[in-house]
């Protein structure tokens, strides 16, 4: 289990406990956090679960594969160095304390 913090564009924070094998995306969906759509259900098709990893984060994340890299070209808000698809971030104990910023829009 890991505590994940989702920061909304207006600065408010939502902190939730997410359990393996859920992903950072599913953690948001299960807690009805507005700002993650995940229309394709987590199959890296749609790019509507885009998050920005906090720049000061030292939490170790799995590397990005080619498909995720490609899908991030089509996000509704600009892609940045710290962009990820939250459906590609499976939760492990290592992710405890992760802070992700939600973009203004997903679609």
């Amino acid at each position: 289990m890991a505590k994940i913090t989702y920061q909304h564009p207006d600065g408010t924070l939502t902190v939730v406990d997410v359990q393996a094998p859920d992903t950072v995306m599913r953690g948001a969906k299960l807690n009805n956090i507005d700002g993650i759509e995940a229309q394709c259900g987590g199959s890296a098709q749609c790019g509507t679960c885009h998050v920005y990893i906090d720049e000061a984060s030292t939490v170790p994340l799995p590397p990005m594969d080619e498909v995720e890299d490609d899908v991030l070209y089509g996000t509704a808000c600009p892609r940045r160095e710290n962009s990820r698809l939250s459906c590609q971030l499976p939760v492990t104990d290592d992710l405890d304390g992760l802070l992700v910023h939600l973009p203004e829009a997903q679609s």
Partner: protein
Amino acid sequence: MAARSVAVIGAGQGGLETAAALRAKGFDGRITLVGEEPVPPYQRPPLSKGFLTGAVGHVDLTLRTESFFESQDIDLVTGDRVCRIDLFRSRVELASGGRLDYDRLVLATGSRPRVLPVPGANLDGVLTLRTLADAEELRALLDGPPRQVAVVGAGFVGLELASTARALGHEVTVVEAQPRVLARALTPQLSHWLADRHRQQGVRLLMSSEVAALSGSASGRVEGVLLRDGTRLPADLVVIGIGVLPRSELAADAGLLVGDGVLVDPWLRSSDRSVYAIGDCARFPGGGPGRHIRLESVQNASDQARCVATAICGGGAPYTAVPWFWSEQCALRLQMAGLTADHDETVTVGHPDEGRFSVLCYREGALVGVESVGRPADHGIARRLLTTGAWPSADEARTPGFTLKSFAVERPSEGLPTHA
């Protein structure tokens, strides 16, 4: 008047997203979500793909946990059916005898498979694929020694299923009345390319072929398919995938305007301003000036759900989302953005021989849609370009070495990568 209670009929993708989005947007009144199936809301797309192979299990299908409905204070009613809408009293009646009063009603009733109107369609071993129960039955039949499977209809469900069944080792024949696969949804280029992939995988495709009858044993079990040209195909499993019909009977009985779906305005309101319709069952303004369309996709259901939730919360804007679709067949990733049916010009970019390419579709010089195979970046960029209107002309796209990626990077606009 601000709404205090919302009833949502249909607990599929659209219905669930409506209920969830209402809460996420701060609606604090009563929300009731009524679903006919005996299970909580689940994802349908894997039912014709990973669920049949076992790669996707029941837990993966669930859209939300049971505790979600409790924590969000959403009354989820499963295994019950709305049998009547009383517009005058703003009330729906349930088959179980219950009643629900509403301030706003959202119809998310979805669609049902078309029935094949031929003798033998009721034999054992003749299935359609729409619900989890359908998929469970099919999965059990495909989990065993090789069968002779006939798939009637080369649409998305039929082809996904054909590809999956073939990969599981079954003999598969697809029978399609149109001269090419996915004739309604895909350009001829992609359609022919995809048909070749199916054939290479060992799927037999019979185009321009119509089913005359299904034949069965004395015990009522299907044994074969008889085509109009006299061909007999042996088959011990027949799956019908010839499209769906909108479930709009409740709306029609209530007196709402209906015509191949519940007719709605740009805000997705039906002819009664307290009643919205979304997803497969709704016919909305789109596809060009003065036209109405009905779309069967997760994107359409989800985006329309959020549009309606926003409207009920007091905001709201006309629905204008760019449609997109995806499919997985023959281990390929197919993604479609926009609506390509009326195109008059195409430009193919990329490498069809490697299974990585996109078909850009233009109508009177304007980009109307992009089909992509194995090019997720193209698909995402295409959705953005169709939204902003800042697409490349057909001549630009025909320039040697053109890619949507480089086009997007060279002309960054809202939503395109700025790091490269």
